[in-house]
């Protein structure tokens, strides 16, 4: 065993001896530079890869899923509200209403199918999908029973419709909402990993260290070899700088793109979706409170809570936030329209409640079904339109954040090869002088 230790000690001391000589030091400096180049390149590719992945998954999975979930909620809600309003005004058989109810339901299921298709491994939303699939037939069955009872003038129809809505609101919509929440959570995680600055910072530090080391070596070489410049090393340093700047630019543009995609796209979509979900909920509450005909207290309580969150006259209301966001995006006209429609709805709601409390049920119904397009419908239309717009902004921003990953990886690798070759070419003649 003693013999075994001896050669190691020997080779270590041989190395130490060599390092005391100038050519040994040159070799050591070159090898270190090459090693650092490889480390920096691998780190750069790793950072770029993370970014690329995050950007891709945002563009093709996270954001579309969020919008699909939001649309599914909107469609289910609208189906319920449509059935309720038609019921309330006694025209459930008017083709327009019935068509809208049917098309709402098929659109909603299509949106859910789109979420399931977007990615295979989504076990966390599967229970919710199951809940929806189990309860949807119950819901439509209850609506149809309500409809046939109502056609015969049987008041039990109202009770069926209330049960249908109860099914929609206590099982289907919460399940859609939990899918929406899961997708929003994933979106947040994707942005966080995409925007993380730890990797780029580390990259900056080691790239700067590499460049400093190379410059240091050149000063040292100049002193030892009495030549002002070593062209090979100078070229290597410049290539390093160029590659570093190029990678920096790619990362910066990616960061900017993601930031803008989030701010102008996803966050805005989420806000608009939340406003749309609340608006639709208020709409359903309104008609259900009237359908319940006296047993609508819980809906009336719910609508007050929803209205509070929907308000546009204080900072905590989503409409206030949406309006300020839209103004920031230079969409003042739409912000104004949205505010006006919501305010009109809340005013109308107050009048309906007043009518109902004064025992003027007929007037309350007339108020509800007044005009072809209720204010809330108009507000929802503005929101639909703005969701499409923010979706467009998201796509534009995420496109600017995307980069051609294979080309960039190739560039970095090529850079590394060039750097190593240049330092080799630069140091070889100097080494020969010591032969």
């Amino acid at each position, binding site marked *: 065993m003693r013999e075994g230790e001896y050669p190691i000690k020997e080779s270590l001391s041989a190395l130490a001896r060599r390092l005391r000589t100038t050519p040994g030091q040159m070799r050591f400096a070159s090898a270190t530079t090459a090693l650092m180049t490889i480390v920096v390149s691998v780190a750069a590719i790793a950072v770029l890869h993370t970014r690329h992945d995050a950007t891709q998954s945002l563009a093709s999975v996270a954001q579309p899923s969020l919008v699909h979930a939001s649309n599914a909620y909107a469609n289910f809600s609208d189906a319920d509200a449509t059935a309720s309003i038609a019921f309330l005004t006694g025209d459930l058989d008017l083709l327009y209403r019935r068509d809208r109810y049917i098309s709402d339901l098929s659109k909603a299921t299509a949106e859910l199918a789109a979420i399931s298709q977007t990615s295979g491994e989504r076990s966390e939303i599967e229970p919710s999908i199951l809940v929806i699939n189990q309860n949807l037939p119950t819901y439509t069955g209850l609506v149809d029973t309500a409809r046939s009872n109502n056609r015969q003038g049987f*008041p039990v129809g109202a009770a069926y419709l209330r049960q249908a809505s109860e099914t929609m609101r206590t099982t289907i919509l919460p399940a859609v909402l939990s899918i929406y929440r899961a997708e929003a959570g994933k979106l947040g995680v994707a942005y966080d990993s995409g925007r993380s600055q730890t990797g780029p*910072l580390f990259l900056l530090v080691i790239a700067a260290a590499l460049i*400093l080391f190379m410059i240091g070596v050149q000063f040292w070489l100049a002193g030892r070899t009495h030549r002002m410049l070593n062209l090979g090393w100078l070229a290597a340093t410049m290539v390093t700088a160029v590659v570093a700047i190029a990678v920096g630019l790619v990362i910066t543009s990616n960061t900017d793109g993601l930031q803008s995609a989030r701010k102008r796209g996803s966050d805005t979509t*989420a806000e608009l979706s939340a406003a749309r979900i609340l608006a639709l909920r208020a709409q359903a509450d309104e008609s259900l409170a009237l359908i319940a005909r*006296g*047993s609508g207290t819980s809906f009336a309580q719910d609508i007050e809570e929803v209205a509070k969150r929907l308000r546009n006259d204080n900072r905590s209301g*989503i409409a206030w936030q949406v309006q300020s966001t839209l103004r920031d995006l230079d969409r003042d006209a739409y912000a104004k329209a949205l505010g006006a429609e919501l305010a009109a709805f809340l005013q109308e709601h107050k009048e309906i409640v007043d009518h109902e409390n*004064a025992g003027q*049920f007929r007037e309350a119904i007339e108020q509800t079904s007044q005009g072809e397009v209720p204010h809330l419908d108009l507000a929802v239309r503005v929101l639909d339109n703005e969701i499409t717009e923010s979706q467009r902004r998201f796509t534009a921003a995420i496109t600017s954040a995307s980069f051609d990953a294979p080309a960039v990886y190739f560039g970095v690798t090529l850079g590394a090869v060039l750097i190593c070759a240049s330092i080799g070419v630069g140091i070889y003649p100097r080494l020969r002088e010591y032969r």
Partner: protein
Amino acid sequence: MNMRRYLLLLAAGLVLLTACSATKDDRLESSVGLLDISSAPASSSSSTPARGCPRDYLASLRPEGPLPSPTNIPPNTFMDFIRHRGYLIVGVDQNTKLLGYYNPDTTQYEGFDIDIANEIAKAIFGADWPNRVRYRALLTTQRIPAVKAEKVDIVADAFTVNCDRTNYVDFSNVYFMGHQRILVRKDSKAEIKNQEDLRGKPVCVTSGGTALANLKKKLPYAIPDIVGARTDCLVALQLGKVDGILTDDAILYGFLAQDPHTQLLDGDLSDEPYGLAIAKSHPEFVRFVNAVLEQMHTDGRWTTIWKNWFGNVEIGGSSAKVPVQPRACYKEDRCVAP
């Protein structure tokens, strides 16, 4: 020297990068958070334990002389106030066919209770009465609070006069004598032929009514299934969630009319004397309403109204007979509950 400059540059770069990454806002999360709404269930007011019950709790207040004509209503009375306000507010149910419900086809309120309430409006407003009634929908549990808070002037909604309720509101004379019975599906005839067959079976009752107490007393072996609105019981029966409904016969007649595949079980479980409920602060209105009811009994209007709603109801193959009209019973006469 050179080194120091590089370090400075490096530091500047670092600061710049961290500044870029520091703008983290959570509009995404906050907007998602806004969607958590746990709606509180409608609170139901449970009645306080019964106090001592006077033996004459069914007796009402005697009218002061004959019924005044609408133009002759004594000043400074509640009727006068209603007349000047321009409308009568009646607490009703909007879902009980034959008793009180909103007909979407005619956009009118219809039913026995509605007609009785309309007679009161007629006595106050005369020929102009149809535009002067406002119906306010009330849940069974909301009736006493609404009368006490004077949100409604009068409740006409299959409202059983019982001892406990007279502690909170005044009642008119009994204008209808109902009886609680049980409705079952026809297909369940094989299993459920009588009340005894409901042993261990779910039976639907409406919260806030007298049915729950009756079920516990008379059919303690059945399992109560309590719902908020009367028609929810019919839904539960049709969907097979319960095997029977226990409530007043007048309400069950309305259910029978909506579902021919149901039938009544034999046997009354209780008497349900219906009265019109009025706030305790308006005894003159109670007397006035009693005068209207007496007039309706003497001139045959009561029978006409009854026949109009219940004349065609078929029970066991024969149509229902006009019941004995409830006899007027006043405290002043020391009338005692039967």
